[in-house]
């Protein structure tokens, strides 16, 4: 009886893992399949969909836009998010908790609502031209909560006596930050930046509504799914997947981040 319920649990666990991973594995698998249909039999192994994709100039434009946006977003978001988290961590809880919740509200809202709100705001109120810049601003809003939460969580176990000693020995706050605080929390900050990278690379709705012309990788994929289900989608989806998943994995490795 006990033995069979044990087996039942393992069967259930395996089923959930299969459910979570199979769709993603299939996409990667078929990106190397000879057959133009995303179906078995997939035929021999081939690089032709990647060759076709790499010959497409639109793909490279989208790729460059994605990297430009993500590059700026990661740097700015990590800097301002870390600054905020370090300060919040030293505040009274009655002050820091409401601020923390407020700063995280943007990721609890439907992205569609943020996207249309930003669109109306840019067009009707600010009067700014839609461009990569407006996309970057939107991405800052939805990446900084992740940076803040991760760094804030790390500071819960930070030994503040180290900072006090540095200050007692005459270091100013900048020197203390650069020589004491930052080296200790460096891996957490890098991890937070990589999560911001994954979120930015994968962000679709805000980008879609505030980019006007041009594409990023997700909007490029969107266009392809909508018009023709051509087999290069598997290849580009795999590239997108490798980018976001590898930054998540590295992030968790370096920061040993726990939920």
């Amino acid at each position, binding site marked *: 009886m006990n033995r069979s319920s044990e087996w039942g649990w393992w069967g259930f666990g395996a089923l959930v893992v299969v459910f979570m991973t199979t769709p993603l594995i299939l996409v990667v698998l078929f990106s190397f399949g000879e057959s133009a249909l995303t179906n078995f039999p997939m035929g021999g192994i081939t690089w032709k969909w990647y060759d076709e994709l790499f010959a497409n100039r639109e793909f490279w434009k989208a790729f460059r836009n994605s990297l430009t946006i993500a590059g700026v977003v990661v740097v700015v978001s990590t800097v301002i998010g870390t600054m905020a988290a370090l300060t919040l961590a030293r505040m009274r809880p009655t002050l820091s908790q409401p601020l923390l919740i407020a700063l995280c509200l943007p990721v609890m809202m439907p992205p569609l609502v943020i996207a249309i709100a930003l669109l109306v*705001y840019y067009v009707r*109120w600010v009067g700014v031209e839609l461009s990569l810049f407006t996309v970057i601003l939107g991405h800052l809003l939805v990446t900084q909560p992740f940076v803040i939460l991760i760094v804030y969580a790390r500071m819960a176990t930070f030994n503040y006596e180290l900072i006090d000693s540095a200050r007692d020995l005459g270091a100013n706050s900048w020197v203390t930050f650069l020589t004491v605080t930052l080296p200790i929390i460096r891996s957490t900050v890098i991890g937070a930046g990589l999560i911001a990278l994954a979120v930015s690379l994968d962000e679709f709705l805000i980008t879609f509504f505030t980019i006007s012309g041009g594409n990023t990788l997700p909007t490029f994929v969107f266009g392809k799914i909508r018009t023709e289900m051509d087999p290069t989608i598997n290849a580009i989806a795999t590239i997108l997947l490798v980018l976001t998943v590898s930054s998540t994995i590295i992030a968790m490795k370096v920061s040993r981040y726990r939920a």
Partner: protein
Amino acid sequence: MRELIKSWKTVPSLAVLAGLFVAPLSLLFVVSFWSKKLFRVVPDFVFDGYQKALVSYWDVGLNTLAIAISTGIITTTIAFFFAFFIRFKAGRYGDILLFISLVTLFGGYLVKIYAWKSILGLEGILNTALVGLGIVSEPLGALLYNRGSVATALTHFLLPIAVLPIVASMRNIQDITLEAGRDLGAGPVRILLGVVLPQCRAGIIAAFAFSFLIAAGDYITPLFLGGTDGAMIGMFIASQFSIRFDWPLGSAMAFLTMFSCLTVVLIARLAIVRGRK
């Protein structure tokens, strides 16, 4: 006050929040009371948007709530058992399973939708397998473009998000309370529902709230997988901004949806907390 002055380092983040979240949402709320005259949207104070939204889109709204609530319940239930497995049964493999959940969390929102489209399609992988194994003679058209396909893809997308808060709240449960239950003669079901469940209510509420809210606000999943049967309100909100340019109506729909969703979350919270008795 001195604490506030010292906290200038939070200013950039708060500026991003104020300038790109509070201000745009406030404007959107104001716009929901504007009126649409021919092809222009003009400042006004009327309830046309709300009236149109309630009259023309109440059925899509209810469909959205139905899909989102069932997705939320299914996702939270699977997540609860999976979290229990990770925390109490999987031993040293628990961390690996959690790691897999986290990895799939950030991996490709659109990629997942596309994957489900190719799995469930008429010439998709599942149909080919079913026909190949002789389980059905004709490919099933009913796998795609309905509520079920939307709920399946959403559950797949939301499961990692729901697992995390429940695992986090289960970390605080001491093994000894389970043993105590067992020693007092409680069966496995009794322990699960009577000992574990009450101790991780906060995680369950968070998991349901997250998965329900994200499901209700999603629009790409129903757009690609929903057909007419699985249509959801997000698609119609988006089209007011991309094709029809009826901003007041779109904004009113967005705020009505958020208001209804908040009500559902509060009711669910009440139900779960009340379950204590």
